């Protein structure tokens, strides 16, 4: 419509403006739009440049050493002569902290997003949002400093009791809930009301006892754990989960909000409680958007440098056993940051190029996951608008 109006005004000016001037105006307009387009495509050019320049320095590594050693060996001795460049343990370390942070951040983030979009009244939401933004704004090096100076000594000195308290606080409500629901489900089929209630109480006491035993048994096992080093994968995973949370919350909140009001009201009209509405109708409808949020959040954790560099211990080995989060690990990003200073002086060596190979790996992972999450969001929008 705006275009048409522009044409209108041009036509009326035809009486006063000469043909040459009109041509000139048209030319400047085209040139101006061209300049705008050029500037807008600067971002795309930069993306290409990033891929080109990282790949340019990464490919020589694979030419010199091939792929097998990099992906299958965990002997990382780049400074030796000749060096060994097995990055398996480092890749594993990256995956380990990323997975750990996802385990903490995804349930919390999705719950918080549901709370923000469906549960809290608007007035409270207004105050909750800035909290999330602040959490997103805290520089990564401040988180890293906190992990290294506050959390690591705390873990090292009283890691066992901390784990025990975390276990109690996190698990006891769920066990309580599980025993209530479990006894309810087990007695649901009994017709006689009095008998049903008696059995219900019996089951409740039984499950409660099991829960209490479980709580204290596991708690005392956790309590006796001695954490050798405070700079370990668990420390990093906890901090990274806080860094990934804001992304997960805000993107999945958008996805939840995109689910229309009519779906919610339909569910309430059928007599569902709020929890049932959310779990059975809203979450499935928003699931792809939430998946996109999870991917973006995980990428934030995988690409994070400062926290892992400062607080992961930087020891390049696969923990024993493989799921032991209490050991020091090393990640891709921390290796790049830590080794570039020395490797840069020997530009052209495999030691320099291997870091770019790691960068390329990170870049490719982030590129693919970005594309996937974008596709998912677009598809969800299409489906929801099509309904």
């Amino acid at each position: 419509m705006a275009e048409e109006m522009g044409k209108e005004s041009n036509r009326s000016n035809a009486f006063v403006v000469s043909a040459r001037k009109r041509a000139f105006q048209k030319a400047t307009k085209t040139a101006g739009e061209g300049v705008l387009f050029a500037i807008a495509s600067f971002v795309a050019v930069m993306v290409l440049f990033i891929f080109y320049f990282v790949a340019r320095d990464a490919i020589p590594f694979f030419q010199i050493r091939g792929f097998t050693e990099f992906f299958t060996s965990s002997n990382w001795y780049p400074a030796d002569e000749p060096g060994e460049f097995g990055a398996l343990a480092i890749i594993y370390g990256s995956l380990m902290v990323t997975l750990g942070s996802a385990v903490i951040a995804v349930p919390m983030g999705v719950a918080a997003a549901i709370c923000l979009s469906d549960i809290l009244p608007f007035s409270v939401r207004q105050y909750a949002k800035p909290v999330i933004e602040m959490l997103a704004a805290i520089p990564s090096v401040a988180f890293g400093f906190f992990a290294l100076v506050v959390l690591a000594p705390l873990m090292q000195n009283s890691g066992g009791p901390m784990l025990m308290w975390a276990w109690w606080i996190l698990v006891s409500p769920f066990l309580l809930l599980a025993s209530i629901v479990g006894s309810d489900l087990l007695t649901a089929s009994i017709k006689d009301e009095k008998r049903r209630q008696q059995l219900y109480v019996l089951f409740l006491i039984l499950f409660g006892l099991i829960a209490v035993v479980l709580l204290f048994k596991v708690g005392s096992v956790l309590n006796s754990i001695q954490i050798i080093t405070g700079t370990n994968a668990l420390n990093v995973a906890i901090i990274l989960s806080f860094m990934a949370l804001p992304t997960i919350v805000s993107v999945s909140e958008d996805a939840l909000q995109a689910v229309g009001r009519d779906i919610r009201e339909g569910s309430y009209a059928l007599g569902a409680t709020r929890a049932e509405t959310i779990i059975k109708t809203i979450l499935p409808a928003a699931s792809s958007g939430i998946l996109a949020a999870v991917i973006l959040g995980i990428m934030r954790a995988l690409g994070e440098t400062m926290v892992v560099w400062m607080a992961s211990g930087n020891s390049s080995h696969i923990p024993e056993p493989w799921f032991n989060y209490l050991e020091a690990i090393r990640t891709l990003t921390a290796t790049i940051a830590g080794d570039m200073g020395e490797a840069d002086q020997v530009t052209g060596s495999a030691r320099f190029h291997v870091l770019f190979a790691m960068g390329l790996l990170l870049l490719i992972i982030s590129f693919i996951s970005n594309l996937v999450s974008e596709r998912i969001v677009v598809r969800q929008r299409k489906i929801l608008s099509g309904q």
Partner: protein
Amino acid sequence: MNIGTRKILDRSFTAVGIGSIITMALALMVVVVPISWNGVGAVFFTGTVEHRKMLYAEFNRGDSQDLSSEVASSERYRSKVYELLSTFEAELETMAPDKKMEYTSKYSQVKIALQALLGPPPGDTAPMLTRFKYGQTRWEKAEERLHELLYESKWDNSNPEIMGKEYFVSRAVAFEGTSLAALFPYVKYNIEKMLLPEFTFYWGFITDSSVDSHFFGGIWPEIKGTFFLALGAMLFAFPLGVIAAVYFTEYAKPGFLNSTLRSANSTLAGVPSIVFGMFGLAFFINTLKVSESKSVIAGSLTLAIMILPTIIRAAEEAILSVPKTYREASLSLGSTKWNTIPTVILPAALPGILTGGVISLGRAAGETAPIIFTAAVSVGSAIGLADVFSSPTPALSWNIYNLASEHEAAAQIRHVQYGMVLALLTIVLLLNLSAIVLRARISKKLKG
């Protein structure tokens, strides 16, 4: 399931949601509170006479008459200590050889601890490093050093099953029967008179350069470096970002080209920050050669590319939220589209664009990874505007890492590290807070 259980499930579902929001708020508190508490301690603390000596000698600050009278009164109490030391040294000469051996090593430990507490003894030629020229400048550190002087730390490794335990042995007992035994109670009870602690407001922490790799002095070079880097990044990224946003919202036609550009934008937003650093090194320094090696300009350019997607997105949203009526009114008055954008649309969208800009500025100030290879040095003086094209700079974010992880005496300068983190957090959070306030005002205005 019966109604009661369903209700309980519903309530607990709500509780989980609220609980996770509360956990996030708590996490924010848990990170921010200790940093603020300890960070304020870099500026407000109980300073000793050594701090005032240092200020006078290194920064020529303070009243020389007050200082010399203070020094004189502390010297009066300290002279007794050195007297005791020389008496003991004389006694040491007269001892049997095996006893002498035993005491000499213990005595040298005492001397080192004493020097760490009070500074070099009188008559000592001035030490090379500034950190050894003064005793403890902060009272809480002096108390730690006093403990080290009074007690010897030993490790109990008798039980191999558990980690070694630290325990302390009184040095006064170890020197029982010698003339040095009197030293320990004397120092213990007269330490305040020797160090004269008093409440200190050291505003110079913000405006001074550091002395002897951050043992003393402030963080001005880092603050200035952060400022230059972040503003430089904005200088490049803000105009580019706003123009690109204008193109995307006003001119771009849906199609393959447009969606590719948008994908590029979100790809750039997702690139890990360390990869930006590598790219800055490979492109700006090794290929374009904007500078010989690391420099502020290379760091700013790298940061600019990193924050560009954020600025574009914020500006797009701001432009899209300008009511359509504005546009139509302008066009109906005969203005061209080319004219409408800078005169009507951009001014109306300006607060929203600025919000995005302010948030990106905070992000540029706080990022570390992109500047590691392109701009940051650990030690350096404050740079001027003329140096931005040639010289690297210390920056808050990098130096926090460097002091906490790589400094040779990281544990001794925790207060400086906390102070730096607090300075960085204050800058970033203030910028974000102003963005939040700005946005709240816009939404009020749009509501009418």
